[in-house]
Structures are given as C-alpha cells and as structure tokens.
C-alpha cells in the first residue's frame, strides 16, 4: 500500500528510455516519501526486464506475460492496471506521456476516479492547504506543467484521490542508475486473473514502425526556427546552416502550426525535450512551452528582430536582426573562418 508505481513501456524486451527516466524520478520521490518503488511490465519477452530495472532501485516488479498483451491495446492493459491498483492502492502512478501512456492513463484514471495530469515538466513532493475546509495535506505530489498553450505554469495536486497520476514526456526527466547491485522482488501474476475476453475486442490488423528520419533529440547542435522566421522559404535557410554545422533543424510549435516544417521537429512541452551543446533559436520569441523543452542547452544563441524577446534572457549570445539577413552572414563567415 501507498507505494509509487511506474508503468513500463517495453519494445522487444527493452525498457523504453522514458520509463527509465520515470524510474529514476520515481526512486527519488519514493525516497522522499519513504515508500517503495514498484514497476509494471505487461507484454511478452519480459525475461530481461528485471535486470534492466532493478538498478534503478525498483523494489517490486509486477510481471504480466501474455502474448495477447503485445502489441499494446487499450482495454487489457487498462484492466491490469485498474485491478492491480485496487489491490495495491498505490499513492502515485507515473506513465510516459507517449502514444501509449496518453491512451492508457486517462482510461485508468476514469475507471478509478482518480486525477491525472498530463505532460508534467516537474514533479515534487509538498504540502497543500485547503483553507476553505481547514484541511492540511502533507506529502502530496506536485504535478507541475505549463498550461494555456504554455503561457503559464500550473502546480496541480490531487488532495483526496489515489493514485495521484501523472504523465511525463520522454527527455524531461534525467535517467540515472540508482545502484547497479540493487535487487528487488519480481512477482509473476496470472494474466487471466486480470483480464477477460471482452478486453480483446479491438484487434491490430497491421503495424509498421518507420524509424523517424528526424533525430533532434541526440543532435549536439540544433538550429531551431519559430514563427518569426516568417515563411517556409526562409526556413530553408535554417536547413542550409544546419547542413553546414552538422546540426538538426528544430522548430517551435508556432512554426509547426504555421506549416513551416513538420511536426516531428517540434521542440517544447508538447514536442521533444532537447539538451544539445548548442541551440540556435531563430525568430523564436520564447513561450514557456518552448523554453521548457530547450532551456538546458549548454549554449543558446538567439537571433531575433525584437531585442526584448523573452528567449533572449536565457541566451548566451543575442543577435538582433532579421533571420533572413543574419543566417546567410553566419554561413558566409563560418565558411570563411573554417577555411
């Protein structure tokens, strides 16, 4: 009872990055709360999951091995979580804000009547006072996320309902081994105790994974464009500079919405979180939702015609000017100085 659970996403027997990040965060929250860290693995080919997750400080691993559980479909995974949570009564449940986590989390929360906060950028433990009812709550999960298109940051709590559920995007939390020799306990459950036939009414006919061509997450240099780039044509300049520097091209949500570039390149709270060595922000004003996804870049260069653009306050270099003037000059002088 009262432990912290992480739902693991597993592909080909390998625990996903986002799940490893959640385990890391989960371990530190569990230490603060003085509770156990438990993890759920549902699928097939789970033999190697133990050795992957125990070093993150997992105390209990719940294993649900059944070929009907992979590929993921909503209903059986929901049934497993709902019944397990009724038995185990966790205080917190963390899921990745992935296609799976954002499909599963709300269904489980609705079934249990518990609160769920999507796309958290920070999770902390703290107290909460309901002044109206004169009630004080200790050790609640602070679920912190940008809201309102990223224009404000909200701290959300679930005072009275358990588990407190939250999803977090990949790359937002850092993963870190807790103890390479940590040994937890693995419990193998009988899947048939948790699911029933009606859970399998949705079937997967075909599935093909196309590995994304865009790999901004692991690129050491990112040239990123915002609405201020002005047009799709101007965006081509970013690709030119990126090619020259061996960089990837990223974008703010406004640029993606304006159709300047594709969705996979979106950086920010509702896109990808990046930590490159160099981040060149072109015509990006710096809404919170964008900054949440790139503020840990080592060096930030901002190109903006507005010297008061919010992003400039976190930049190391601020170039004031039009993107379409500045980038060709950067290209020209980069070439000149590397000859």
């Amino acid at each position, binding site marked *: 009872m009262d432990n912290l659970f992480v739902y693991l996403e597993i592909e080909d027997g390998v625990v996903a990055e986002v799940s490893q990040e959640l385990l890391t965060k989960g371990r530190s929250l569990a230490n603060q709360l003085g509770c156990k860290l438990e993890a759920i693995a549902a699928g097939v080919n789970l033999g190697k999951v133990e050795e992957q997750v125990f070093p993150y400080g997992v105390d209990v691993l719940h294993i649900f091995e059944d070929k009907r559980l992979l590929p993921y479909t909503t209903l059986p995974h929901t049934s497993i979580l709902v019944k397990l949570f009724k038995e185990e009564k966790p205080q917190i449940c963390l899921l990745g804000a992935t296609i799976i986590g954002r499909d599963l989390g709300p269904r489980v929360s609705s079934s249990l009547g518990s609160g769920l906060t999507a796309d958290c950028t920070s999770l902390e433990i703290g107290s909460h006072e309901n002044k109206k009812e004169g009630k004080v709550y200790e050790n609640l999960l602070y679920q912190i996320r940008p809201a309102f298109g990223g224009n404000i940051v909200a701290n959300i709590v679930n005072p009275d309902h358990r588990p407190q559920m939250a999803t977090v995007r990949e790359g937002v939390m850092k993963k870190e081994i807790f103890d390479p020799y940590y040994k937890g306990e693995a419990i193998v459950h009988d899947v048939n105790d948790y699911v029933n036939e009606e859970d399998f009414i949705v079937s997967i006919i075909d599935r093909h994974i196309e590995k994304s061509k865009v790999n901004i997450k692991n690129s050491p240099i990112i040239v990123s464009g915002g609405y201020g780039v002005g047009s799709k044509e101007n965006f081509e300049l970013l690709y030119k500079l990126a090619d020259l520097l061996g960089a990837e091209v990223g974008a703010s949500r406004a640029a993606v919405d304006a159709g300047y570039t594709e969705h996979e390149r979106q950086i920010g709270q509702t896109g990808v979180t990046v930590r490159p060595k160099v981040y060149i922000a072109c015509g990006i004003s710096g809404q919170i939702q964008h900054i949440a996804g790139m503020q840990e870049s080592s060096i930030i260069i901002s190109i903006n015609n507005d010297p008061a653009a919010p992003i400039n306050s976190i930049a190391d270099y601020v170039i004031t000017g039009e993107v379409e003037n500045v980038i060709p000059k950067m290209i020209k*002088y980069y070439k000149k100085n590397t000859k």
Partner: protein
Amino acid sequence: MAFNIIVLAKQVPDTRNVGKDAMKADGTVNRAALPAIFNPEDLNALEQALEVKDRFPGSKITILTMGPGRAAEILREGLFRGADDGVLLTDRAFAGADTLATSYALSMAIRKIGEFDFIFSGRQAIDGDTAQVGPQVAEKLGIPQITYAEHIEKIDKNSVRIKRRLDNGVEVVESPLPVLITVNGSARSCRPRNAKLLLKYKHAKTVTERQVENLDYIDIYDSRPFLNLTEWSVADVAADPLLCGLSGSPTKVKKTENVVFQTKENKHISDSDIEIDELMKELIENHTIG
C-alpha cells in the same frame, strides 16, 4: 446503412497566437484578449464524421459541446459544415471541471442523446493539451477507444477499421461499434462552411441566446424547429452535481504563475558583417561549433 454520430467539440482560446496583452499584470490569463475558436483537432474530427455521412447518406451528426453560453458559436460552425444538430451543455455547476468531471458531464449528455455508433473528438484541445477527455468519456460509456486516428479505412455494419498515427509509424486497428475515436491533426482538414447551410442555420440559437438577444423575429423558431439549438443543464442530463465542475474534479490547481527565467549574462551582437564575422570566429575558436 446509416449511423448515428456524435462529435465532441470544444471552444478554446486561441493560445497559438498569444499577443503581449494576453497576460495581466498579476500573472493571470487575460481571456478577453484571446479570440475564441473551434478547437483545431475537433474540426479534423468533424470532417471524419462528415465523411462517414457522405458515404452513408441518412447518417445523423450531433455536435456536443460543454462551455459557457457563447460556446454555441461552435455548434453553428458545425451546422454550417454539415452537422445535423447541436447540443450545448451549460450550467454554472459545470464550471471549473477538470478532465474527469468534464468527461462525466459529457457522458451523461451522450446517454441522453441516446443511440450512437460513433463518437469522434479531436485528439486534444490546444488550451490544455491533455488528450484525456476522449478516453475518459469512452471509459464512462464502457466502449472501446481508438486514439490518434488519422484515416478510416473501412466501415462495416458492426465494425470499423482505422489507421492510427504513432510516433514512428502507423497502426491499423479494427474495433466493433460503438466506438470513440480521437482524431489526430494529421487527418484531413475540415471542409469549409457550406453557403446553403450558412443561410439555413445563420439564426440557429440556444434558448438563452434568444432571451439575451431579445429577438423580435421570434416566431421563426416555431416555424423552423431546426433553428433551435438544444441547451442542457446539470439537471437536464440527470448528472450528480457533486461529480460535476470543481467538486467533481480530483485535480486541483494549487497555484499558477508566470515563469521567471534564470537570466544569463549575454553578449549582444548586431547584424553587421563585422560583428557576425567576429562571432563566428569566437564560436569556432572556443569549439562551440566546427
């Protein structure tokens, strides 16, 4: 073959084009400064519904929204594009609802609408970006959900085959009906307003709108019943007030704030050739780039 279709839609502040006056001095959102729009992905959802109706004439589309009185605007938008009916769920008791209380209210309204084969909604709304209400409504109704839908491949009397957009690929799934489908922004855009329908439904109003506007051509609402937009309260859908609005919301907003960024010491550079030349030299020399 004809289907009963419900489209869930939300009127949202246009958070994508936030100007400098969008935030008040005290750090709260100045809603009045933001235009209210039809949530973009809900338009993709409406288009999917309209395509089902195109393929199966006689199908009926009801567009359902929860919000303040002005949210009736998006019901009219739906009618102008081909929906048959609009329902506004509005009541002070719904105010402050989180996703769970919202999905409870919507599910009660759907039960009142009655028989349905499809529910379509957008993947998520741009003011909250949670993507939670769709799956939660499906759970409350006890029907399957297909999220991130991009295209309907095939419809049979009792089942539907749908292509979903995943992070790195696609998946084709088949589900029995009834089903709730959340539609991704990558699906086909919604058709524009139809001129004939615009004329037909221009004066479609909810009861409250008619009262507030004190219309003098009131008898047209008797002679043309299709101009009456349905308006339901908590009591109308037999919802438990304790499960609605703020009291029905497990999540509470403890605090909201503007973020103050950790300001760095920064170097200012103009767009002159000399200064950019110097900058590139510096970046290459200190191995930032190159």
